[in-house]
């Protein structure tokens, strides 16, 4: 193997593995944090018992969050929550965040200062990639999460990296969610498959942590293993009051080897909508504008952050949700809910006739909260729109930015928010 520079993920895994490793090496890196949600924790507990595992490799590194179904409204859900509590207690889980405590497990660990740039985090959910917002490497471990809990690692090949250089600035009325959805359309899934997307370039300088969550959230939908925004002063400033550990801003080496380098000009993006049946089936909002909707939701690990709620509230202020539409709003975390209340955003949503739900994944988590009925049309800021994702199989599901969803909820049909805000006439 020839010596060469490292990508960010190669640096992270080299540190964790205590040896220099490059793309395609087979490794067993020990996770520095293991995250898991309420819908799998009970299964993991049963699996550990079935395999005769009496203790986790290091329960102090394990985090469980009740975010997929935080408000139990059925006997089955109440029992599941009880199982999760029992599991966390039995295995002495270090970070158990029950309903009402913290919120969505792909975001609040960053708010709580548990995630730093350069950390290696593994978790049961594809959107553990959100931790790339602060320069950490989050990777999903699904079936083998029991092995991860028991032994601290599972086999991995060190991933190749696709570098995306962001340039320019977004136009007014266009958000990072539009850019993220557009990328699902423009990137070849086979180019990014199993790769880490490393975002860098001058365009990242204008992106706050909330925007970086969104950017790191979506590439997994077309097969990327993870995403990382090259950390910078924005990360340092964000973590300054949250994280007592030293913050090391890992950069890729200039001679790092990439599978591909792609340049994306943020200024060329228009508001986007994902059409059925998949997130990558993306088109300009104008192609579906006017389609009547019944159901709308703002939230999820992709777009339930304070910045997203601000954008939606700005449009909803002094307006009403269309009588034919029910609009659900879910803050991603308790901290976001508190801040939104303090800023008066919650009042705006309530006055507009929206339904505010408990912090967490909201409608996006399989439609257990606020599902769609057969034949209905929904537009939301969730992560996926596969048939059946929100309940009824024959419902029609669109995905879009918080602005597009809020504007559509107001008019009752898919709407380019720039018309409502006067940016476009």
């Amino acid at each position, binding site marked *: 193997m020839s010596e060469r520079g490292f990508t960010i993920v190669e640096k992270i895994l080299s540190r964790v593995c205590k040896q220099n490793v490059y793309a395609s090496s*087979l490794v067993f890196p020990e996770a520095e944090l293991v995250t898991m949600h309420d819908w799998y924790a009970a299964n993991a507990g049963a699996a550990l018992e079935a395999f*005769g595992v009496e203790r986790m490799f290091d329960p102090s590194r394990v985090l469980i969050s009740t975010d997929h179904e935080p408000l139990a409204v059925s006997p089955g859900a109440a029992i599941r929550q009880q199982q999760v509590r029992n599991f966390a207690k039995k295995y002495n889980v270090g970070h158990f965040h029950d309903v009402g405590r913290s919120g969505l497990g792909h975001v609040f660990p960053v708010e709580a200062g548990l995630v730093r740039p350069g950390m290696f985090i593994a978790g049961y959910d594809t959107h553990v990639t959100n931790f790339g917002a602060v320069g950490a490497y989050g990777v999903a471990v*699904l079936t083998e999460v029991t*092995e991860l809990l028991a032994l601290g690692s599972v086999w991995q090949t060190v991933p190749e990296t696709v570098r995306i250089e962001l340039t320019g600035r977004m136009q007014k009325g266009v958000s990072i969610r539009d850019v993220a959805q557009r990328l699902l359309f423009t990137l070849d899934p086979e180019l990014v*498959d199993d790769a880490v997307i490393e975002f860098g370039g001058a365009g990242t300088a204008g992106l706050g942590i909330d925007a970086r969550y969104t950017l790191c959230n979506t590439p997994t939908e077309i*097969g990327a*293993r993870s995403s990382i925004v090259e950390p910078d002063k924005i990360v340092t400033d964000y973590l300054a009051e949250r994280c007592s550990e030293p913050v090391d801003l890992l950069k890729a080496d200039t001679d790092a080897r990439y599978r591909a380098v792609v340049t994306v000009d943020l200024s060329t993006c228009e508001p986007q909508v994902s059409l059925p*049946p*998949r997130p990558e089936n993306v088109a300009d909002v104008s192609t579906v504008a006017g389609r009547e909707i019944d159901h709308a939701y703002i939230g999820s690990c992709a777009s339930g952050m304070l910045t997203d709620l601000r954008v939606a509230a700005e449009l909803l202020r002094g307006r009403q949700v269309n009588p034919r539409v029910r609009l659900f709003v879910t803050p991603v975390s308790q901290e976001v809910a508190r801040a939104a209340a303090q800023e008066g955003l919650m009042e705006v949503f309530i006055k507009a006739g929206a339904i505010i739900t408990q912090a967490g994944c909201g409608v996006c988590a399989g439609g257990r909260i606020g599902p769609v009925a057969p034949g209905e049309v929904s537009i939301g800021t969730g992560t996926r729109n*596969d048939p059946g994702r929100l309940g009824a199989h024959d419902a029609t599901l669109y995905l879009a930015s918080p602005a597009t969803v809020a504007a559509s909820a107001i008019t009752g049909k898919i709407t380019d928010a720039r018309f409502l805000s006067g940016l476009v006439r």
Partner: protein
Amino acid sequence: MEGRAFILGNDIANDGHLMALEFALSRESDPEILRHQIFKGLDEALADQLTPGDLIVTGRRFAQGNPHIQGFIGLQGARIGLLTESIPSSSYRLAINAGVPLLPSCPGLRAQTTQGDILRVDFETGSVLNVTSGEELNFAPIPVHARAIIMAGGWPPMFKARLKQQKQSRERNHSGQKV
């Protein structure tokens, strides 16, 4: 492995095509239940037509979308092999963990195979012999460590072996400390 070829298209979805999402949400893991549910969203009758040894020959991005293992447990329960033009890595890993024999990169195979052809596949070498036409094609086999997981029957036996190894290592260390 030898059996009939069943040809499918590109972009077969994991949720909805290969397996209904409900089985993922209910965490169903019984191969005997899931084997009867595979491909229901694509072709209601397909699961009943498949017999052990048959091979699914697919286009690009087989089982794209949210990676849930239930469809692969169903394929393993039905003793079906997979020959894909491409498969997202997350689904590739699920196939391995479920113990489904596969060749993940078979460009051109679908175009040269007719529905119902008898195929004989050597997953160790990557050779695919079309017994019906007499034509043989060769593709890259999956890496040795992944093949070992499939041959062991999927992830559970491999995990058990690693647990046992760890226990023995601890015991050795413990007895070493006593000395």
